Structures are given as C-alpha cells and as structure tokens.
C-alpha cells in the first residue's frame, strides 16, 4: 500500500519532468524572464553604490516570486490544454498522491530555474559564486511556494483570466515566506552565522509544513469530480 | 481645529460607505424579489395552459 502510494507520486512527477524535458518551452521562457527581471532591476540603482547590498535580497526574491508564479501558471494549464488533466482526475490515485506528485514537479521545476538564476544574480551583483546559505534559504522557501502554488494553479485553470488571477491569489498568501526569506538572505549576504538565521528558517519551515498539509487536504475540492 | 477636520473626514467616509453598501444590498434585493415574482407567475401561467 505504502509503496504503491509513492509509485503513483513518482509517476506523476516523472510525467511532468518528461513533458518538460521534451519541449523545454516553459523552462526557457521562465529562465530568460527571471534574468530579465534582474537586469531591469539593475537599471533602477546606481551601480556600485552602497544601496546594492541592501537591495540585493529584495531583488532576488522578487525575481524568484515572479518566476514561481510564471511556472505555476503553466503547471496545470499545460495539462488542461493537452487533455491530460481529465486523465489525472480519473486516474485511480489518492488525491494526496496526486497533490504530492504535482507539488514535487512544480518544486523541481522552480528549483532548477533558481539554481541557474542564483549564479547569474551573484555575477551581476558582484557577489561570491559559492552561496550555500542562500541556496538553503531558496530550497526551504520554494517548498512553501510550491505547497500553496500547486493548489492555486489547479484552481485557476477553471476560471476566466487565469494568468491574472493566479498572482492575485498567490502573492498575498506567500507574503510571510517572502518576508522571512528576504530577512534571512540579508543575514546570509552579510556573512552572519547559521544560528542567526534559525528563527527565519523556522518560520518558513513551519509555513511549509502547515500549508503542505492544508493544501493536501483541500486539493480534492479544486479538482473536478 | 485641524484635528476636527481629520475626525470629520474619517467619520463621514465611514457613514457614506455604510449607506452606499446598505443601499446597494436593499436595491438588489428589491429587484431580485420582483424578478422572482414575475418568474413564478410565468410558471403558473404555463401550468394553466
């Protein structure tokens, strides 16, 4: 029983990875978009000024949030366009398995984008390339993005103007994650120790746990019967 | 007396919003009731035919 649960989760995850890997259209556009956001932010400050260090975490998280909402938009929309959504709803898998599969695929997608954007960001902001603390913060926060985002992404495919509605739903809910991630990143960039960041990471981790559970419980109601 | 102006501004805004909202609800309620009545009558007439 337990093994079949994870088999289903990984089947859904694998299906999304394969579709994305074959076309790579979403990946390319989200990646280029993210780098564009960072570049545009660069024009809004005077280069080399002291401002740079204080605004860098903000720029990074605005970029990640925008990239996140773009990729979430595609996650279920693609399934719907290809008629795969009906298949997913009809497949004899537990709703929790369905949720986890989609959530992990969103998470994997965002993490791959972030893994490429982070070094680009470091180069453009003249930061060291090796940023383990920032990477940890990014992983923890992105779990929160995916946990909430998957439900909303499934919800908006059945509404008009879905590309507009998703950010309106998604941004207010993830505000605590963004606040904590920006604060933690500030500390990470000013070479603070791990223990100083603990309280922020705890908040994000708590958010991850609460919303993964809540989202898995309500996921059934955003799918069609 | 600048104080009083701020107070009045807040006070008046609140009452305007409340009145507008209540008015909107009661108007829509009246229209809906009318529509329900006409629809019911129509159904009755059809049943008679």
């Amino acid at each position: 029983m337990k093994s079949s649960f994870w088999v289903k989760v990984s089947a859904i995850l694998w299906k999304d990875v394969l579709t994305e890997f074959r076309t790579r259209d979403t990946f390319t556009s989200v990646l280029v978009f993210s780098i564009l956001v960072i570049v545009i932010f660069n024009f809004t400050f005077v280069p080399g000024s002291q401002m740079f260090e204080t605004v860098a975490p903000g720029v990074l998280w605005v970029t990640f949030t925008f990239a996140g909402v773009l990729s979430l938009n595609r996650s279920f929309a693609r399934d719907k366009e290809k008629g795969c959504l009906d298949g997913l709803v009809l497949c004899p898998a537990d709703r929790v398995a369905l949720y986890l599969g989609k959530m992990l695929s969103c998470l994997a997608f965002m993490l791959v984008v972030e893994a490429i954007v982070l070094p680009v960001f470091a180069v453009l902001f003249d930061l060291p390339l090796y940023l383990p603390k920032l990477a940890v913060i990014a992983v923890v926060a992105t779990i929160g993005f995916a946990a909430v985002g998957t439900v909303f992404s499934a919800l908006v495919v059945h509404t008009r103007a879905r590309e507009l509605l998703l950010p309106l739903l998604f941004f207010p809910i993830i505000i605590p994650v963004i606040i904590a991630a920006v604060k933690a990143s500030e500390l990470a960039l000013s070479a603070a120790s791990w223990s100083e960041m603990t309280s922020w990471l705890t908040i994000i981790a708590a958010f991850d746990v609460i919303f993964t559970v809540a989202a898995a419980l309500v996921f059934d109601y955003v799918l069609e019967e | 007396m600048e104080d009083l102006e701020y107070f009045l501004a807040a006070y008046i805004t609140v009452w305007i919003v409340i009145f507008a909202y209540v008015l909107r609800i009661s108007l829509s309620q009246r229209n809906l009731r009318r529509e329900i009545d006409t629809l019911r009558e129509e159904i009755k007439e059809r049943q008679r035919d």
Partner: protein
Amino acid sequence: MQGRLIDYSLIGVCFTLMIAAISLISVYVPTEEQMGVVQRIFYFHVPLAWVAFLAFFVVFIMSLLYIWKGDEKWDFRAYASAEIGVVFTTMVLITGPIWAKSAWGTWWTWDMRLTTTLVLWFIYVAYLMVRSFASDEERGARFAAVVGIIGFIDVPVVALAIVLSRTQHPSPIVFEGGLASSMLLTLLVSVAAFTVFYVLLLRLRASTRQMTSEIMKLRQELEI
C-alpha cells in the same frame, strides 16, 4: 415569518445601539489629552476592525462547513461574510491612515496590525474575484471555500513574520496607560453596535444570494 421577526428585532437593537454609540462618541466621552478630538476615530476604527476580523473568521467556518456538508446555504453565508469583511476592512484602511496622520504625523507605518489588515484585504478581494471569474456557480463556491480556508490559516503566519521583522522599529503607542472607564464603555457600546450591524448585514446579504440562486432554478424550470 420567524425570519422576518428576527430581522425586525435586529434592526431595532442595531438602531438603538448605533444611536447610543454615536451620542457616546460625540458627547459623553472625554477628549483624550494628547491626541485631541481625532482620537475619537478610535471608537469606530477599532469596532470596524473587530467586525472585519470576525467576518473573515466566519468565512473560514462557513467554508469548512460548505466543504464538509456540501449544502449551498453555508456558501451563501461565506460569500456574504467575505464581502462584508472586505467593505469593513476598506473602511478600516481609510480611517486608520487619517487617524495616524493626525496622531503620529504619518499616513502609514508597516507595523503588524496595519500590514496584516492590508494583507487580509488582498486575500479576500482575491476570494471575491475567484467567485466572479469561476466558470460556473458551483465551481466558484468550491474554489472560494478553498481560498477562504487557506487564506485564514495564513493570517497568524503573516502576523508572526511581520512582528519578527519589525522589532527594531518602535511600535506606535495608542495609549499611555490603560483606557479610562468612560472610554472603555464607549468602545464596548460601539463594538456591540457594529457587531449587531454585521449580523444584520450577513442575513441580508446571504438572503440576496439565496434569491439569486432561486432565480437560476426558476429560469431552468421555465426553459424545460
């Protein structure tokens, strides 16, 4: 008929309490020494905020009930409460800065209460938009219930994150020392008045939703 009777008695109670609250606010309560007349905003700003939070809590409960029982009457109440909550939060967000500008000299500070209220406003505006953008009524109700539940769970997390991030700023002082008993009385009467008003609005607005759905059913019947 019983519903009518409740409505009329609620209107009576609400009206009496409102009149009492208005006269207490404008005549009875002493003017606060440091902030002056403008501090009287407090006696409706706080009740409005209280009703807004109450309304969103009701949305949460009604959304759970709707998902659990599937009866659309819970959805009517959830929708009504969300709309009233947004209207009240809007008033809170208007009166707050007016008071703050006069009392603290600034329209806005990013402290916990203000920011959380603003985030709440965004969440429930999105809630209302989900309903109007959904492709059909039943779907909209289900989706909105999900937003109503997730949105409410989010509130304490938002508040916590903001409290921790703003520790270096002094939090604005509303009162030095406690509230005088006359002020407390005025506040309580006002809170009671607005709460009864909320219940009244909730009943009205929910019945409007009920009528809309009845019209849909009658129309379907006619087309057959």
